[in-house]
């Protein structure tokens, strides 16, 4: 128990440190938020033209914008680059799990994205005239937390590929394309053709991004919500195991620099 409290304390310090570091990069944060917001906003524009008069789709995409900003993950920058540059050496020497560094940076960046992006979310909500149901939002919050955990695990797993290849940025980019395509950003999974919809619902990508937005947009039945929570927990368990396994075999290959 004391260990857990100590770890949380370390994590809190990590978050606070990265948060303050980024205070110096406010202008760059702004462009990062715009960059993250473009796909949900384009989805909002395109789908509200494709399905005119549907406030449900606008609500979904405004919620998706919020989810996207609160689940952003940049482990290819915060972690893979450290492997390439040999900076991981310092983290390996510290008396704390290495993952605490990227995790703290991740949470700090998400807080920043939400803070900087909040006006954007509010403007998008007002312009597209959406109305949220408070009950739906309350139902969506736990799934948002799970999605945030899952997306971190997924990106961290892909970023670990830096132990084997120079292409970790490309690998993470590929993962992001999958999240965009199958995670409910390109199109809500509820609008997928019926033949591939079950696939979209069960793959981990919907659990990382679209699922909380779909709950908040009131487009799921109670059964679907329950099933979605089930998929989220299942995928988190799978990805925790994968991350532990890949980390253990990767760190053995690590040769500090020049390998």
């Amino acid at each position: 128990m004391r260990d857990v409290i100590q770890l949380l304390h370390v994590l809190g310090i990590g978050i606070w440190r990265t948060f303050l570091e980024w205070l110096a990069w406010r202008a760059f944060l702004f462009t990062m938020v715009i960059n993250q917001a473009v796909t949900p906003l384009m989805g909002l524009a395109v789908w509200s033209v494709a399905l005119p008069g549907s406030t449900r789709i606008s609500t979904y995409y405004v919620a998706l914008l919020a989810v996207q900003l609160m689940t952003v993950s940049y482990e290819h920058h915060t972690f893979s680059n450290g492997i390439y540059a040999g900076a991981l050496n310092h983290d390996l020497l510290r008396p704390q799990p290495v993952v605490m560094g990227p995790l703290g940076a991740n949470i700090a960046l998400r807080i920043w994205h939400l803070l900087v992006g909040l006006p954007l979310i509010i403007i998008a909500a007002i312009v597209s005239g959406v109305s949220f149901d408070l009950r739906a939002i309350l139902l969506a919050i736990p799934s948002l937390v799970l999605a945030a955990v899952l997306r971190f695990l997924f990106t961290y797993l892909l970023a670990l590929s830096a132990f084997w290849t120079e292409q970790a940025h490309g690998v993470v980019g590929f993962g992001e394309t999958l999240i965009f395509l199958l995670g409910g950003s390109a199109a809500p999974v509820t609008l997928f053709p019926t033949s591939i919809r079950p696939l979209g619902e069960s793959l981990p990508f919907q659990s990382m991004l679209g699922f909380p937005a779909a709950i908040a947009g009131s487009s799921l039945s109670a059964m679907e919500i329950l099933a979605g929570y089930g998929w989220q927990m299942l995928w988190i368990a799978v990805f925790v195991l994968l991350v532990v396994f890949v980390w253990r075999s990767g760190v053995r290959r690590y040769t500090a620099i020049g390998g």
Partner: protein
Amino acid sequence: MKLFRLFGAIFSLSLRRELAFRAHLVFQGLMTIVGVISGLAVLGIIYTQTHTLGGWSLGEAITLLGTFQVVSGILSTFIEPNVMWFSDQVKDGKLDHVLIQPVPSIFLVSLGTCAPLALSQVVVGVVVMVLGLRELGTLPTLWGVSGWLLLLVAGIAITWASRVLLASLAFWAPYITPDVLYGALWQFGRYPVSTYRQPIRFVLTYVLPVAFIATFPARALIHGADPLLLVIGLAVGLIAIAIVLLVWNAGLRCYTSATS
């Protein structure tokens, strides 16, 4: 003429450099294909729900996506590798090196290196356009193709000008980094401009001329070029180039190298 020969030499050097990294080459090719397939899949899903998007049918939207891909390929081959993080060159004084070369500085800064592998995006873009035209079931007329080409040239000129213009902001405000922002706004070119609502549509047509990258050329290819639009496109292209040259020279006068 000298600039053209220099450009050829730069291209061949860059190509040889890139071919040395085989794994990177394969990976880039794969990513290009994945990107295009994802773009097509998105259109496929949208058009299961509707028959028209801002007045564009599926075949027309695919043709537009192909055109977008062609211009994006040219942007990431010739322009982006140069001006990406240009503000760093201004900040740490590396620009000195460019200024002492016997070639116009704007040429070296904006076209001094390239990433020839990204041309694969252009090839894939042409394939996508052919797919779109097949879906439409029409053969473009000669007039349509020449209109497409002319507007494409205008679009590329505008792209180059706007990207360099954004980069040259670094002379006055070296601590803003507009590079990521440009890439983000660029994505709006994927869909017909008529998809977006009015204030945004106006901005995308006249302020950030995203409409010229794909919407206008694709429309010219499918429906034949509107002569007025051709004239406007070429005029906007020329004006954009003139503005960039002016701003660039004004910017150079503000440049004080690293020690200031």
